[in-house]
């Protein structure tokens, strides 16, 4: 809907104060506080990999599309855009989530980590190095999501057995079928008893 539509605003009643769409609202959106109301389009500051990014967001823009279309962070992949493949997995406040089902404007004030935020300069994150060593990939398209999921999995601690790893990695589809190598890579990072990492 068009928030500038006067009849609509009249109907909103008490909400009208919140939905006032003006430069003031835009300024509010630029702060690190979540905006009280967002209508298309406004600028928002989103914190990704420790850096503040200024993005032009409509409420309907997903975090995935915001990253892929408006930044150089194309490592987060669009596989199904429906939450069914895991290729778009990122961390929000340390938890693995699906960026295709996350509205970008709801991420203001949160800490987002993408695949580009894992390595320390030229030094790969141990999980990235393990995926490389075990060839936990082929075409590479699901790989960033797999690695983001794997890093979170280690923190979650569901790594006691290979079967447990496989179950907890089943939200990330790899059509090339690199699954055994992915499990082996995670196994290397957490150690034989699943405790390390």
């Amino acid at each position: 809907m068009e928030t500038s539509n006067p009849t609509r605003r009249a109907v909103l009643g008490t909400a009208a104060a919140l939905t006032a769409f003006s430069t003031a609202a835009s300024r509010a959106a630029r702060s690190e506080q979540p905006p009280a109301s967002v209508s298309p389009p406004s600028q928002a500051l989103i914190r990704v990999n420790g850096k503040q990014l200024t993005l032009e967001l409509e409420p309907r823009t997903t975090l995935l599309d915001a990253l892929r279309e408006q930044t150089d962070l194309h490592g987060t992949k669009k596989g199904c855009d429906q939450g069914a493949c895991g290729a778009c997995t990122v961390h929000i406040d340390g938890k693995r989530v699906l960026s295709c089902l996350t509205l970008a404007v709801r991420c203001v004030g949160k800490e987002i980590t993408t695949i580009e935020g894992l390595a320390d300069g030229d030094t790969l994150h141990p999980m990235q190095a393990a995926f490389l060593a075990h060839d936990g990939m082929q075409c590479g398209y699901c790989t960033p999501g797999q690695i983001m999921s794997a890093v979170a999995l280690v923190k979650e601690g569901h790594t006691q057995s290979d079967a447990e790893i496989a179950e907890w990695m089943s939200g990330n589809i790899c059509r090339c079928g690199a699954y055994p190598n992915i499990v082996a890579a995670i196994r290397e990072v957490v150690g034989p008893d699943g405790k390390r990492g």
Partner: protein
Amino acid sequence: MQSFELIRPRGIDGILSDWHPGDAFIAGGTDLLQLMKNDVVAPERLTDLDNSDLHAISLVDGSLHLGALATMAEVAAHVDVKREWPVISQALLLSASPQVRNMGTVGGNLLQRTRCGYFRDVGFDCNKRRPGSGCPALRGDNRELAIFGGSSHCIATHPSDLPVALMALDAQLDLAAPGSGTRRLPLAQFYRLPGDTPHIETALRPGEMITNVVVPPGPHARNSLYVKVRDRTSFAFALVSAAVGLAVSDGVIRDARIALGGVGAMPWRLPHVEAALRGQRADTSVFETAAARAGDGAISAGLNKFKIELTRRTVLRALRTVAA
């Protein structure tokens, strides 16, 4: 996705007072955004529930209280839930994927829309999506669809696992509406069967929202489990699932609770099977006799006929396992 406005009110009072007809609530967003991307729904305004203060998981007088915004992952991992209501934790851990469980909420999961392929694709007719347009699933590909509670207008199943467990446990919902306070409703009265109005799925009134789920304790809850049968090992919806709770003392079944997922227009309780178990000895022959009746009243639309036999076997498996 059509454009919409997003408002982010604070607290339940703010949320309710800001509500306006045509608004939708967004919590985890894992189902709503799929539906919006597919143009199945196109709300003009979304109310963000992030600031609703409904995230808590707590024990009140021995009952479990699940805030509507508690995530599936948080509930599944909660130590009290795992100990006193294991069927809830298991149902959640067998749901979706770890990422979805980190996002999806209790309230949202209860309100997940059907996975019927005809409903989710606007290229098909669907009585649930467009009342009166017809139900091609009745004569089409209905392998996954309902054998219980369907009608000649709709045979869609409720897809979630959590409400199956909650149904078995006689959970109640706290519902809050603009200007009319909170009411408590048994989950069994929350869902509506399709009848000739399949687009009306719940007892929710305009602007009303789930705030809290209350689950009573009991020996049947402590001794409960969830069995889910699906077409792949993980990350798939149920063909048939069963939530069972058995209270057994001195070898006798004092209480029995059974609810099914994947087969009903709503999470489907089996009172006649429960009755066949109560007061009986907890042994295999009793389970077999009771489970043999689990498909009673089922109606097949064709391709889903196998679910009737699979239901019996799933219930039997669940009973044998929980009693072991």
